[in-house]
């Protein structure tokens, strides 16, 4: 059920609040207890690794500069890793074919290094 806030109601509420006097005494060490509760709540709300990551994705990643840097970094990493892996694979294949060439002519040789 929605309460409709009109200027009249607002004025009435203000009047009531102005007339409201709290005469109950606060319990002992009330302020300390409030601060302790605040501290406990803050500790509970501190995000873990995944929370931080999600927050990073939510908040930092949509910023254009960060998004561009992130995409460019992954692109460069992909290119470098792809090229290096291809180089390693190619050198293995070359060594293997060199060995096959030698073995085709000299069956006594089991292993061969590249020229």
């Amino acid at each position, binding site marked *: 059920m929605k309460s409709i806030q009109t200027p009249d109601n607002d004025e009435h509420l203000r009047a009531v609040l102005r007339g409201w006097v709290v005469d109950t005494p606060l319990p002992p060490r009330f302020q300390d207890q409030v601060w302790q509760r605040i501290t406990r709540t803050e500790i509970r709300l501190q995000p873990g690794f995944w929370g931080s990551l999600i927050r990073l994705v939510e908040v930092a990643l949509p910023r254009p500069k960060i998004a561009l840097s992130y995409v460019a970094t992954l692109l460069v990493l992909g290119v470098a890793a792809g090229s290096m892996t291809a180089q390693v694979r190619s050198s293995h294949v070359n060594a293997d074919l060199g060995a096959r060439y030698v073995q085709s*002519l000299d069956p006594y040789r089991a292993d061969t290094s590249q020229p």
Partner: protein
Amino acid sequence: MKKGGVILLLGLLLGAAAFAGFYYLGTAPCRNMMHEQQPELAWLKKEFNLSDADFARVTAMHDAYLPQCGKRCQVIGEQNAKLAELLTKDPTVTPEIESLLAERAKTRALCEAEMLKHFQEVSRAMPAEQGRRYLLWVQEQTVLRAQAMESRHKTDGGPQMMEEHHH
């Protein structure tokens, strides 16, 4: 979260695509060689920068050499079988076994000599500099490899083996 997630995914996809693309391009020459009829000769062509004409000559020499090499291998195989048979009959080194060992060594030496001649012929069919490089490499891998084994034997196991003999 939605926009950040899309950027996260886009970055990962682009990185993976870059990896796959560069790996594919980088290994394309090797893949092409492996699809050739004689991949080891395709490798030789690439490794020693042979022209099509040089490669045709080298391939012809290679194909002509292999049947002769096969015949010599067959002779060595027969000698090995005969040696095994003689050793089964008599565990001592008889004059017949000695003669067979000498005969086999001779066939092996002939095999190596013919192989060396083939390598030299192939090296002459290549451009001069590549031919020299080929000959050095192929000799190291074949006839000179025994020397490498001997020197390793001397340095690694030699003294230890000598001590074992003395004890």
